[in-house]
């Protein structure tokens, strides 16, 4: 199928304004006749639900949490980018656009990214008006800091808890609409299927997580804001509940899934410590502004350090290799995430890793503490240092942190056009669950920006265009597609409970995570991926024969919830591998060992792979069909990324 991005005609800087003028408007008196379902209450979902309700639409907001405030956006630490140029350091909308396109290794759509940079400035204004307590200078104005992959200071922040403060802002706006009766909140409700009737999104099927009740909900349009799928790797910085189920169910109902292999491995996480580990904890990228990354200069020194024969402080300056500063003098410790992660892995592969497992590098604050003071450092990073100490029992004011890359964000997601509409009419995807703005690699502090841009400033306009063309007739769940979808959900749940095998959902999830991390993680090869595909197919068969659960559907059954999510992760894992195999190039977070420069940097193939890979579901156990959206670059020149 030809994938029409619907990018508006005209000069880049005028596209969005022109488009806003061209979209159809819904008469204010008619808005209350339209129902919109928003699934997910993170930054994108809460912002969209609140903004749509403010406009007058009837909104149904769904979350599997007990409260909208618990969505994983809350855990974002470092900050949010905006092209305000408050620092007078040369920032502009075009520069933010350019940095994002380049940082994404030229695999994102120009028009979407430019719009993102444009609306970024309004996001800050909106959040300030809500009472979000951003960091401020002594003169009372907003403070900024620089962030990985950028040479200007455009990141707004609230200590190391920016995501929390932005989400609580969006949550407060949402709560206000709940109080007004414009948003009906459905908590502890998990979307288990999309209902498509007469070729259009007509509603969703949910399971009440407390009672097990399967419920149908109808609407004129559905917005998915259900986050990323990083937990396919089992260990990631995602929260425990983060999952792909809503997006995957939509995919199986006709929404194409784009660039699934583009996953981001974040360079600064607390290293894995044991088999029991349930998740990994991120240490904000902002730490790389002041921390210096290093490993011992030789394998021998690293080995003695791991054995405890010498201590960190015994290593003199000459014994240390500040490898990012050495290899990338222009950007130093601030190189983008993919570059920083790959280099850390390389050091550990060379045997120069630290910590008892050898899978860690140092992030050292001794210099900045000496140059300023421990108190100044605490002002900036206090909560992160505390968190590190709680987890590792080591004091980072005295010893360098040990860090290692971990799965953090997924650039891939549901394919959407310029309006954020998927290939299913009436179904929209916002925030991390769409693929749209970050290409093959996301820059730091850009996820919060995109989630809020989509929710506050894009969806409210573009969804109106669709609704204006839809009759304002009341909706109901009488279409046979609802009964069919509801029955399928019930049967699937019953099937999961009936297997009565020997292995728990967590056991399957761990095996899946291991396969994905080993073969579809920081480095990939055709050989490894082919092997992994067979392993996953085997795992899928075993899952449906040997799953062990207890209890019933009609109760709070957390193992049952988990089982359904793991089943979908297994299928997604296979698609990620197909996608990684198809893409015979290295770009951003996708590093194919066969395609690298002599210096070991990613080697893109713009001639053959400057496309979005949008996968189409063709039926159970059938290979998916690849559809391509060719990317057009009219405003930037494609170059090999260099941070030297």
């Amino acid at each position, binding site marked *: 199928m030809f994938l029409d991005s619907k990018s508006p005609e005209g000069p880049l800087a005028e596209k969005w304004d022109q488009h806003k003028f061209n979209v159809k408007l819904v008469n204010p008196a008619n808005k209350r006749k339209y129902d919109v379902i928003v699934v997910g209450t993170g930054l994108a979902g809460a912002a969209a639900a609140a903004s749509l309700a403010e406009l007058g639409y009837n909104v149904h907001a769904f979350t599997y949490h007990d409260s909208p405030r618990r969505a994983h956006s809350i855990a974002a630490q470092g900050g949010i980018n905006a092209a305000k140029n408050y620092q007078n350091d040369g920032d502009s909308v075009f520069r933010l656009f350019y940095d994002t396109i380049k940082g994404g290794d030229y695999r994102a759509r120009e028009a979407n990214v430019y719009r993102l940079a444009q609306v970024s400035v309004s996001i800050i204004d909106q959040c300030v*008006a809500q009472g979000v307590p951003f960091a401020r200078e002594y003169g009372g104005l907003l403070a900024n800091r620089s962030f990985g992959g950028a040479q200007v200071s455009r990141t707004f922040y609230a200590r190391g808890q920016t995501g929390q403060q932005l989400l609580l802002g969006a949550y407060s706006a949402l709560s206000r609409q709940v109080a007004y009766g414009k948003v009906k909140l459905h908590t502890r409700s998990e979307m288990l299927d999309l209902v498509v009737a007469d070729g259009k999104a007509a509603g969703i099927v949910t399971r009440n997580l407390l009672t097990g009740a399967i419920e149908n909900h109808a609407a004129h349009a559905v917005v998915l804001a259900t986050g990323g799928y990083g937990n396919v790797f089992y260990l990631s910085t995602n929260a425990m509940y983060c999952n792909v189920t809503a997006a995957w169910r939509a995919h199986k109902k006709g929404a194409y899934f784009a660039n699934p292999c583009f996953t981001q491995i974040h360079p600064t996480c607390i290293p894995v410590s044991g088999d029991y580990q349930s998740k990994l904890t991120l240490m904000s990228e902002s730490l790389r502004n002041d921390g210096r990354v290093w490993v011992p200069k030789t394998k021998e020194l690293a080995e003695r350090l791991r054995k405890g024969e010498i201590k960190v402080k015994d290593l003199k300056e000459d014994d240390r290799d500040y490898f990012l500063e050495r290899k990338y003098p222009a950007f130093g410790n601030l190189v983008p995430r993919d570059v920083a992660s790959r280099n850390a892995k390389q050091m550990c592969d060379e045997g120069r890793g630290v910590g008892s497992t050898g899978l860690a590098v140092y992030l050292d604050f001794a210099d900045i503490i000496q140059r300023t003071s421990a108190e100044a450092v605490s002002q900036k990073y206090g909560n992160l240092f505390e968190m590190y100490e709680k987890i590792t029992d080591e004091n980072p004011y005295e010893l360098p942190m040990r860090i290692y890359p971990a799965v953090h964000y997924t650039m891939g997601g549901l394919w959407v056009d310029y309006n954020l509409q998927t290939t299913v009419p009436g179904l929209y995807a916002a925030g991390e669950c769409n693929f749209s703005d970050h290409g093959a690699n996301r820059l730091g502090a850009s996820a919060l920006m995109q989630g809020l841009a989509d929710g506050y400033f894009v969806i409210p306009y573009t969804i109106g265009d669709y609704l204006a063309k839809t009759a304002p007739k009341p909706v109901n769940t009488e279409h046979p597609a609802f009964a069919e979808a509801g029955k399928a959900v019930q049967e699937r749940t019953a099937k999961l409970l009936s297997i009565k095998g020997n292995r728990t959902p967590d056991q399957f999830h761990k095996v899946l995570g291991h396969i994905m991390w080993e073969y579809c993680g920081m480095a990939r090869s055709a050989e490894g991926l082919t092997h992994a595909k067979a392993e996953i197919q085997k795992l899928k068969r075993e899952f449906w024969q040997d799953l062990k659960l207890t209890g019933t559907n009609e109760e709070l059954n957390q193992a049952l919830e988990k089982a359904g999510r793991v089943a979908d992760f297994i299928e997604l894992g296979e698609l990620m591998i197909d996608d990684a195999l198809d893409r015979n190039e290295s770009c951003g977070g996708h590093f194919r060992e066969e395609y690298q420069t002599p210096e070991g940097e990613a080697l893109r193939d713009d001639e053959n792979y400057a496309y979005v890979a949008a996968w189409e579901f063709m039926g159970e156990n059938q290979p998916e069909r690849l559809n391509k959206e060719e990317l057009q670059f009219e405003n930037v020149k494609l170059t090999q990324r260099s941070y030297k």
Partner: protein
Amino acid sequence: MAGSNPNAKPMNLTLNVWRQPSPKAQGKIVEYQVKDISPEMSFLEMLDVLNEDLLHKGEDPVAFDHDCREGICGSCDLFINGRSHGPEKGTTTCQLHMRKFSDGDTITIEPWRANSFPINKDLSVDRSAFDRIIQAGGYVSVNTGGAPDGNEIPIPKDIADRAFEAATCIGCGACVAACKNASAMLFVSAKVSQLALLPQGDVERKTRVENMVAQMDIEGFGACTNIGSCAAECPVGISLENIAILNREFLTAKATSNNLA
């Protein structure tokens, strides 16, 4: 664990866990043994071990609320050995590590105990009362669009910092569980203070505090008698000063109120 404590020995523990199949069912404490618990595990990872074990035995795993496991989402809510989030100060349950316990310990694990937080199952409770309090007024009434430039509202750094400190409340409910009156004053005061300190919140400051306090009473939370256990047990250090601010805001609002209801 890498580097930190290579001599840490695995522990065997006895757990006394509150089990209650459903909201209306009779609950009871059930004893479990867990073995070979690494001191480097988090408390919830220790419960994961218990649950995997139960599932393998065909028994019902213990339901508990959790999600981010980074101490920020506010989902986890265990009352451990008689204290909200357990023995370590300024720490959520998910950030509590087993190195704070010793081999052979008996640990009692209960849900938050408060009438306003009914039990869903086992250790999981319903905290939607907090959401309804926020819905009563915990916001600035601005619609999307039309906000002035962020720098048109200068805010002194110390005020911004104090507002931020109040705004860091994670809504876990530890304050209610720790209070002998099951009062929600610390939670409510954190939001009231944040918005009362900031110029953005000034327009609605009187109606906000009146409505939020009224909703707090409707939800059945107890009165505050200034014991301070809420602040002592708060995992993110919300200060008791906020309750003083709330009381001042409330009295000022009532004394000059147009709200005759």
